[in-house]
Structures are given as C-alpha cells and as structure tokens.
C-alpha cells in the first residue's frame, strides 16, 4: 500500500460513513469488518484480556452515535482507537475501584499469556510476545501502533498524548529492549 493507497483507504471509510448516513446499514457492517480486528489487537496491546469483543462493540456503538464529530483529518481507525482507549481507561478505573486491585502489571500480563488455553504457538513467537509484554505500558502501546498498525508518529502522538519526537524515541527504545531480551537466551 502506498501513501496514495493509504489516502484512498481513508476515502473508502469516508464514503462508507456517507453511505450509512444515507440509510445503508450494510455500510456499517463493512466499517466494522475493516477495523474490528485492529481494535482487538490495540486492546490487547493495552493489556485487555477479557471481554475484548464487548469492548470493540462498545467502541463502534459510541462511534456511530457520534459520527458527526469525526473529522477526516485523521484516519477513522485512529479515531476509533481514541474511543477504545477511553473505554479501556474507564474500564480499568471501574475495575480498580470495584476490586481494589492494581493495574495489570508486567508479570501478570505474561502469566495471562502463558496461561492461554489451547494455544499452540511457535516458540519464537512466544518469546517475542514475552519480550513485548515486558515493555512499559507506553512503550508497548507505541510499539504496537507503529509495528502492527503502521500508524505515522503524528497520529501515535495524538493517541498516546505525547509528541512525535518522544514517540520515535519510545519506539527505538522498545525495539532495543526486545532485541536485548531475545539475545539473552
């Protein structure tokens, strides 16, 4: 996908929104199909392990209820990420209050992953996953947005509430930390 493809991709989303606004419900399904899995990955990168689909569904419901506030100067996916992130923070706050429990820490994240039922994964990928899970929350988020979603630093900075320069540094530090972890075998 080239830059113009990326732009074309954004235009596809804008056209789908317009179709939905004209009464075509199938356009909504297409939008969900285009972004649901990326939202699930983004949720996972933030340590969400439970009720991921419910979270993604809530994200879309909120998005469609306030579609008028979407401006095409960022991608629809980034806008959806923003909504999901707020929901994750709300959920974490609620859970902390309810169970008086600290945020998912690194050890917990790794244990959750190791305990995944019936998971048969390549051993190398498991090691890589462990390396990523050991990053700090912010590093992991920037790393995921850059490596897995390919977002430009400008949009990553908006999402994580930082600057492009800082995000670039987080990415490179994360890369270095992952390589160090893997070379320690």
């Amino acid at each position: 996908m080239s830059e113009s493809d990326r732009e074309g991709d954004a235009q596809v989303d804008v056209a789908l929104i317009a179709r939905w606004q004209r009464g075509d419900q199938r356009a909504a399904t297409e939008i969900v199909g285009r972004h649901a899995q990326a939202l699930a990955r983004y949720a996972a990168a933030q340590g969400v392990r439970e009720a991921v689909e419910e979270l993604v569904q809530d994200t879309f419901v909120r998005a469609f209820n306030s579609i008028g506030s979407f401006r095409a100067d960022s991608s629809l996916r980034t806008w959806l990420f923003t909504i999901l992130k707020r929901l994750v923070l709300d959920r974490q706050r609620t859970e902390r209050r309810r169970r008086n429990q600290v945020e998912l820490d690194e050890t917990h994240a790794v244990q959750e992953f190791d305990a995944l039922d019936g998971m048969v994964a390549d051993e190398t990928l498991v090691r890589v996953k462990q390396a990523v899970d050991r990053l700090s929350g912010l590093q992991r988020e920037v790393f995921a947005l850059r490596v897995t979603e390919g977002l430009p630093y400008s949009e990553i900075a908006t999402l994580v509430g930082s600057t492009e320069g800082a995000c670039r540094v987080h990415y490179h530090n994360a890369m270095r930390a992952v390589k160090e972890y893997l070379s320690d075998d």
Partner: protein
Amino acid sequence: MTDCPNGLMRDLLPEHALGLLPAAEAARVAQHLAECATCRADLVLLKQVRAAQSLGVPRMDVAAIASALPSAPATSRPAQRIASHRWFGGHAWQYAAAAGLVLVVGGGIVWRAMPTGEEARLADSSRVVVAPVESAGVREPLPADDGISFGGGLSDLSVDDLQALLGQMDSVRTLPSSDPESVTPVIAMNEGGKTL
C-alpha cells in the same frame, strides 16, 4: 547486538514491513536492506512482532458487532423539498430580504459566539467534515465552514420565526468536534424542519 547507524532506514522499516511506503521510498529501503544485515534482521523481527501481537487476540464476530449498531438515519425529508419549491413563488423578494438578514446578522452572531479555536478551524475551509445527515437523503461531506443549516426553507419563516431563529443561533456555541474526549453526539438534530 547493534543498531544500524542509518536512523532514517531504522525509522522506515515498520512501514516498509507493512508495505505502506511510496514506491520510491520503498526502493531506497530495499536497496539499503541488500547491504545491511542489521536491518535485515530487524525486518524479520518486526514481522515476528506483528505475528506475536496477534497471538491470543480473539477473532471478532463482525456480524454480531454490527447487529448492535444504531440504525442508519432515515432517508426522506419531504418538508424541505416542498419548501424549496415555494421559494420561487410570488413573494421571492421577501424571502431574499429574510435570507440577507439571516446571513448578515446570524453569521455575525455565530462568528462572535465562537471560541477562538473554532474560528481557526472554520477558517480552514479545505478540511472536509463528515456531516450528520439528519433526515436528509443526500447530504455529502461538507466544507468545515458550513456549520449551520436550516431545513425548513426561508419561505416557511415569518418575522417571528426569524426572530426565534436568530435567538437560537445566538445560543449555538459549538460545532461538530474532533476532540477525542467527545464520544457523545455533539450535533443537535430536531425532528422539525429547522435544524441547527
């Protein structure tokens, strides 16, 4: 374990791995990769990271998610069409005068009521806003400075109506926002013809 000294190439590798680079830039990265074993190893690692980050992520059920979404807006607004025919009736000069009043006075009020940030946003008319369609059937994305519309047509408005409209305009302080904080609707839509 070392880092490639070419910072630009290191920076571009994730987008290269995802095929997001324009052709010319992708060719430059490919040429660098042919000469740099460190970046080749990094590229392999990036692909592994992508695969690893999908591990344990449940497959989303698109149909189930879509079934929970709000219904698409309705598609007809006959009152507006009727009103637009009446515009060309025998009292066009009255309507023209009313339109002038709304545009000059109303526009001034809205501009004055707007916070500074909004002024800057409106000034940037090159930006495209996906506007809500309310009940209209065929509304395409609008320029950002089209903040106000009224669906009933001026022909429906008496002097009293115009006064009421101006009063409503005075109370409009916000336009659709891209503020990520805002995940609730920010556009007021009413059932009647006059939409603000």
